[in-house]
């Protein structure tokens, strides 16, 4: 029996979990997949937007600007990378110039600080690799970059440290409201009972909502494809480069990542299937061609991986954050598309205040926990450390002296730490997102078998049961000689 059940462990669910961990509540998070940040939170641009492109007066505008300003605290408390590198929206035509003016006015209304329209010469001085034919650019110094999955993981770990219980591989199948007002949530891993439910199920949040009879909104998945470049191109630009927004979103951007790579994307394609994260030839070509307009020097090769993510667009295109009209104790946090990552820290607080309101109507209220610890220490990173720190790390644990992922310089010590944190890393992708092992230019070709050996040893998972990302994604399908049946012949 829990006070609160949060459905979905993306950045929104985890931010809410961390926020609610401040109070005297029993909170659980139910996640269908094998790890946190497996949906949109694991596959997006990683941008902390300044907030000039949201329509004034929307929830989106308010929470984006508020969330953006919280990122220094998030980075410090949760030990995650964040850089306020600023962003530029380029103008190529006269039409674009009026778009910039509109964005700037909008930004000012939304409370975004420091916006300036810069002439081309000044822009090119800041970013010499941009297309020299630009006319001007809107400079937003508060724009930033972070690692979306690291933020999510860190929020989850901090919530877990403060008592929130995470149930991975627990897909919600149905929700019944009993006469005592409690929700009985049937999952693939058993039934959970909770007084309040928070629907943070991302792309599936309308389906979860329908389980309590609320079909007041629909989610329309919109796919975006990306290409990630080798680190040798990581300083082609220093700020995040946008093009004037299109009807379907903020357009194709070119940005350095906090890990030192270069990222281009996304396109925006409305799709039917909620699990369609396939990249396409057309999509990737479009992204490349568009990015080339901003940065003509962009190479055709040296891409190390491509991926696609979904944006959960709700009807009306604003965030939906409110109690369900069917049951006040069921709080919707849906339609959190871009700028969801930017807004996430503020969404956590906002949901807590809504919850407090509902609880007060039920004669309860949020009571702060005295022992809440807002700090979370990340995994000690060998590659970022100086030699003195590295020496200390190895002195304490020899495994920090054995490098497993040579591209990203990740040690066995880091991988072992990732496997034993809470929530734990149970899949190869989970190890990758926590340590960067396998994220480099060889894409795990060298380290995958070695990481599997470590997982087998540390977690007691047999090699054949180790998966890439849970469910049916096993890496190997048997031992050698297994398939040599009597019928094997040539």
């Amino acid at each position, binding site marked *: 029996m829990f006070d609160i059940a949060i459905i979905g462990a993306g950045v929104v669910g985890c931010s809410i979990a961390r926020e609610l961990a401040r109070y005297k509540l029993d909170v659980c998070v139910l996640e269908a997949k094998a790890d946190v940040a497996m949906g949109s939170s694991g596959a997006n641009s990683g941008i902390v937007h300044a907030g000039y492109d949201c329509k004034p007066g929307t929830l989106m505008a308010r929470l984006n600007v508020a969330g953006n300003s919280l990122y220094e605290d998030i980075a410090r408390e949760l030990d995650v990378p964040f850089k306020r590198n600023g962003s530029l929206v380029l103008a190529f035509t006269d039409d674009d110039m009026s778009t910039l003016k509109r964005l700037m006015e909008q930004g000012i209304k939304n409370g975004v600080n420091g916006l300036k329209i810069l002439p081309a010469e000044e822009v090119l001085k800041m970013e010499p690799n941009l297309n020299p034919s630009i006319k001007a650019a809107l400079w937003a110094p508060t724009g930033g970059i972070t690692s979306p999955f690291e933020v999510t993981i860190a929020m989850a770990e901090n919530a877990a440290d403060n008592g929130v219980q995470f149930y991975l591989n627990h897909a919600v199948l149905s929700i019944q409201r009993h006469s005592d007002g409690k929700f009985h949530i049937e999952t693939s891993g058993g039934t959970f009972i909770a007084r309040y439910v928070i629907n943070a199920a991302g792309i599936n949040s309308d389906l979860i909502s329908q389980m309590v009879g609320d079909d007041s909104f629909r989610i329309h998945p919109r796919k975006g494809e990306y*290409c*990630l470049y080798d680190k040798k191109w990581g300083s082609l630009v220093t700020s995040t480069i946008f093009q004037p927004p299109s009807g379907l979103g903020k357009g194709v951007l070119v940005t350095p990542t906090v890990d030192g790579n270069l990222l281009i994307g996304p396109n925006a394609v409305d799709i039917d299937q909620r*699990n369609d*994260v*396939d*990249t*396409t*030839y057309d*999509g990737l070509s479009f992204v490349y061609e568009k990015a080339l307009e901003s940065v003509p020097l962009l190479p055709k*090769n*040296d*891409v*190390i*991986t*491509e*991926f696609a993510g979904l944006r959960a667009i709700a009807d009306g295109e604003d965030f939906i954050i409110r109690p369900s009209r069917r049951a006040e104790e069921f709080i919707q946090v849906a339609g959190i598309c871009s700028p969801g990552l930017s807004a996430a820290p503020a969404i956590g607080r906002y949901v807590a205040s809504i919850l407090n309101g509902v609880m007060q109507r039920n004669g309860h209220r949020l009571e702060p926990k005295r022992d809440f610890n807002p700090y979370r220490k990340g995994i000690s990173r060998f590659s970022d450390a100086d*030699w003195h720190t*590295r*020496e200390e790390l*190895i*002195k304490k644990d*020899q*495994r*920090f*002296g*054995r*490098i497993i992922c*040579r*591209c990203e*310089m990740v040690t066995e010590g880091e991988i072992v730490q990732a496997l034993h944190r809470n929530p734990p890393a149970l899949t190869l992708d989970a190890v990758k997102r926590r340590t960067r092992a396998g994220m480099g*230019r*060889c*894409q795990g*070709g*060298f380290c*995958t*078998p070695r990481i*599997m050996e470590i997982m087998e040893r540390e977690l007691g998972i047999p*090699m*054949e049961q180790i*998966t*890439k*990302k*849970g469910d*049916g*994604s*096993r*890496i*190997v*399908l*048997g*031992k*050698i*000689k*297994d*398939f*040599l*049946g009597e019928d*094997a012949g*040539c």
Partner: protein
Amino acid sequence: MLSMKADVVVIGGGPAGLAAALSCHRYGIRDIIILERDSHLGGILQQCIHNGFGLHWFGEELTGPEYAQRFIDQVEKAQIPYLLDTMVVDIDEDKRVYAVNPKHGPIEIQARAVILAMGCRERTRGALMIPGGRPAGVYTAGMAQRLINIEGYMPGREVVILGSGDIGLIMARRLTWEGANVKMVCEIMPYSTGLIRNIRQCLEDYGIPIRFKHTVIKIHGRERLEGVTVAQVDDARRPIPGTEEYVPCDTLLLSVGLIPENELSQKANVQLDPVTGGPVVDEYRQTSVPGIFACGNVLHVHDLVDYVSEEAEIAGYGVWRYLNGLASQYGQHVDRRVKIETGYGVRYVVPQRILGEEDVELFFRSDNIYDDGVVELTDGQRLLASKKFLRIVPGQMERFKIKKQALSGIKPGGRLLIRWRNLA
């Protein structure tokens, strides 16, 4: 931090590093140390359990582990020190090598000479930009080789292989021998880059079809691979609409090229050749940074390990010359080396620079299949040397020996051209 000095630091304990260290030792150098990142010497040869190694070097056919062991035994006998589980993290132009291992922690070695012998890595799906899902079951051939031959696990049962490089062909047979069903090998080029022997013994023996001018254009599956779409390509390697075919499979192996692993070399400001992906070297395998040498697959991808061993010998000789002041004339500023450029039919040549004080052997690869012709070395006006070939193919490294006398008149800092000429 553990601080040491050494005359020669060899980075990598695979076939190139071992042979280079032994070569140095034969020339009387004693203060050598080999740094190897794995827990054993021998490098990638330990997972190449098939035979076909050593015909040139030892005059007999060996498997990879046997070939490696012969060199390891010699290294042990010569008592050349080595550190295992030791990853080199950084190196600078002053030949300071920074490494780390579990036992000693951080290590700094001031070397007089460095031999780069880090080998290569495989091209990945990401580099090819094959669209589709991102399921488990898409692996490089070398990773599959490690899973099977070192770990003892089968990556899958129903297999498609993209690329007809030798590792892919060898894996086609290895998987078949383990009871898996290899459905086809797709090769985007109209010819294979693998050895004829491997086409015969790894594919034809088992009736595995090889589809030339075909590639994989889509990967299907969300969790585990469910199939691939293959299509024929035109001469510009673009898929031809209407030729798509869905092939169900649980595993896709990629054998689409090897890339010399030169991230460390770049930290030391070693100049790279954009075609080979390895350092630009002279005939002693010295890079653009005096005292830093390179050999083996870090320099250019070899077809036979025997040639790696040979090249490593040369690098050892080069180090000996360097440490004895015989190489002082090619200092950073006064470069007397002659540049060799590639002309018709020649994709690359190693070395790319020569001094020409001794006989020189050029290693080169063609950019296509050519029959009946000669490879020529000219200085623009004069033909300096030529060699007849019945056939040259891109998959095979060719050799071209130049006599010292032929190079006697070349101008320091000048240019030479290597090219193919058809005789027919």
